[in-house]
């Protein structure tokens, strides 16, 4: 009981308990309410973490300045996704797209996924983090396959093959890190704990550490969807149920980058090891340019936003590769903002698809005329994703560019090019979808818009002004990242 009262315990135990209970509940209506209740409790616990930080969680768990950002973000996006999923699934069931046996295990899997992601952030042990990311991967594979169509099965299979290869490479990297740490730190858990790894990194063998980081980058980079490891991503985003697309782009992408950053801190603490910056910057820039160009050739709405996620993962990788307090600050802000905006966008996309009965962009016309509320929310979401003011992604991208022009003007120019190309792609597609003569509707009513409003509202707030304590806190983490 005391573990449940501790917010750090609650964000792990609530999803776990809810997952176990939900596994026995057959009625999907009851299940969706329990799911919502669990997500709300997790959100409350995570918000409590903001004001009261538990200490002495044992040798496996630790709340520090770095992971707390992501725990809170996970809970917020997890909550709004639950609200959206509740409506989405109810509609898919009533329209006959999904049968009860399709989504029998959606809710328990969802809660266990949230619990696994929270534990991945909360743990201070590299091995345990890997296990949680593996669990998250397996669950999302199952979830992508939920619609049981040709396309979703192919997407799930592709995700399974590439995801498990990625996750294997990441484990090999983790084992390599352990084997360089073990002679210095000694056997057992300390040689796996991030704090001792960073503290003793200077004494590690630099060559092996480099090799380990390459494996980690390739492994967890697959989760983040960095080019050329992205091949599974558009399929999985496009063919899975829309709430799963929101989770994949809003939360799992961040988890992959978080894992890379944890190991980057170890690498930068060793002066003889290679600088991880150039590697991250190259992967990042190539991802941005590639994804920006791919935006123009898409005909499927969800696939379109999937490529936009690859672009944003690229910008984030570039920011952290650049390094320094300003770029790291921008990278963190970008991760937080992108997670909120992109999940919100997928909620909007889900509602648009419900109205038009298709995810082909050619069949979606004049949304602001036929459904002003949804239409303008959709426009706002795309404006936010494009990184235009007054939204928070603008602040983040502006800071990345400022840092880039200070440190690497040439690379900054390439980044600007990528951003402009993607801006063009986004608006070229948005224009006919949002304005002009409406296309015929499959249905008249769409679901509630307030989950999107919460996400976009937070992003708007951060675009207009970043609250003082939050800014200080981000600055502190940015320094930690080196």
């Amino acid at each position, binding site marked *: 009981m005391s573990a449940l009262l501790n917010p750090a315990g609650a964000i792990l135990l609530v999803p776990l308990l809810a997952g176990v209970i939900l596994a026995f509940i057959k009625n999907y209506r009851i299940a969706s309410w329990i799911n919502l209740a669990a997500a709300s409790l997790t959100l409350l616990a995570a918000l409590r973490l903001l004001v009261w930080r538990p200490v002495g969680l044992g040798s496996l768990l630790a709340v520090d300045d770095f992971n707390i950002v992501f725990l809170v973000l996970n809970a917020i996006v997890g909550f709004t996704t639950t609200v959206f999923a509740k409506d989405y699934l109810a509609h898919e069931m009533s329209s006959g797209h999904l049968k009860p046996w399709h989504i029998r295990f959606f809710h328990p899997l969802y809660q266990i996924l949230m619990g696994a992601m929270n534990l991945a952030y909360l743990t201070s042990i590299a091995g345990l983090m890997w*296990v949680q990311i593996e669990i998250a991967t397996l669950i999302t594979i199952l979830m992508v396959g939920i619609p049981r169509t040709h396309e979703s099965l192919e997407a799930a299979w592709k995700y399974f093959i590439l995801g498990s290869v990625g996750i294997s490479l990441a484990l090999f990297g983790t084992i390599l890190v352990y084997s360089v740490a073990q002679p210095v730190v000694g056997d057992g858990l300390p040689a796996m704990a991030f704090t001792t790894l960073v503290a003793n990194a200077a004494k590690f063998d630099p060559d092996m550490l480099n090799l380990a980081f390459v494996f980690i980058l390739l492994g967890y980079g697959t989760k983040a969807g960095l080019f050329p490891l992205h091949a599974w991503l558009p399929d999985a985003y496009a063919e899975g149920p829309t709430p799963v697309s929101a989770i994949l782009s809003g939360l799992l992408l961040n988890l992959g980058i978080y894992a890379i950053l944890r190991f980057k801190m170890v690498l930068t603490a060793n002066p003889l090891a290679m600088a991880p910056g150039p590697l991250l910057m190259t992967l990042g820039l190539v991802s941005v340019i590639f994804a920006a160009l791919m935006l123009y050739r898409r005909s499927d709405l969800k696939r379109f936003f999937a490529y936009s996620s690859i672009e944003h993962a690229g910008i984030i990788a570039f920011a952290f590769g650049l390094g320094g307090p300003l770029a790291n600050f921008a990278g963190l802000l970008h991760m937080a903002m992108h997670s909120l905006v992109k999940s919100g966008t997928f909620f909007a996309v889900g509602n648009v698809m419900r109205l038009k009965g298709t995810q082909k962009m050619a069949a979606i016309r004049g949304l602001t005329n036929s459904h002003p509320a949804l239409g303008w929310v959709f426009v706002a979401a795309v404006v936010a994703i494009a990184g235009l003011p007054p939204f928070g992604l603008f602040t983040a991208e502006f800071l990345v560019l400022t840092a880039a022009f200070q440190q690497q003007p040439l690379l900054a120019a390439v980044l600007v090019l990528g951003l402009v190309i993607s801006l063009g792609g986004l608006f070229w597609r948005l224009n006919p979808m949002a304005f002009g003569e409406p296309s015929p509707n499959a249905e008249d009513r769409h679901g509630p818009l307030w989950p999107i409003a919460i996400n976009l509202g937070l992003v708007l707030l951060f675009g207009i002004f970043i609250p003082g304590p939050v800014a200080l806190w981000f600055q502190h983490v940015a320094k930690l990242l080196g």
Partner: protein
Amino acid sequence: MSTFAFDVSHFLSGTILLLSFAMLYQDRLPPLLNIFIAQSLVLALSITWQAYTQNEPQLLITAGLELCVKVVLIPFVLYTLIRRLKIHRTVETVVGIGPSMIAGMALVGLSMALILREHPAIGGTAREDLAFALSVLLLGLLMMVTRRNAVSQVIGFMAIENSLVLAATGAKGMPFVVETCVAFSALVALIVIGVFLFRIRERFDSVDVSILDHFRGEQP
């Protein structure tokens, strides 16, 4: 560590690598599965030997798990699957046997070059085991890339898992958490894979993954 213990450990790891090569050139499913069983068996032996030389009895649990899951349970399910699906008996290779063997040798050379340089910082059998494990991992990747059949891709993936267990057990005193979870994940992976294989069969009347390409969402 005595030279003898060292040699035995090398011998076992080397055998695992050799069996990986044997998997590369098998062009029918049942023998491929047999070689996988042999590899897992040698791996279990190698873990037992590590448990003895490192004096870490909990590694015996890992060895036992390996034995149950990868030598008995998974092969049994896959045999049943192969029989039930009446999969045609030849494995289609995308690249020929010769080129893939040469590619395999190049990969082994690469991993030796990467890890077996002078690294006094890593002691015991860990360094050699890591080199062997990296080779087995890369060969498993090669197999997944060159095979089209879903079952042989799965076997390739499990060979990769074998390499990870080899690396994890070779690293002295690695926390036990990781090893149980690798074995556990193999089991979960099997469930996932099993479900998918059945559904792929149900949907496409074949386990040839290349047929899936028709259903790519990219085409208008």
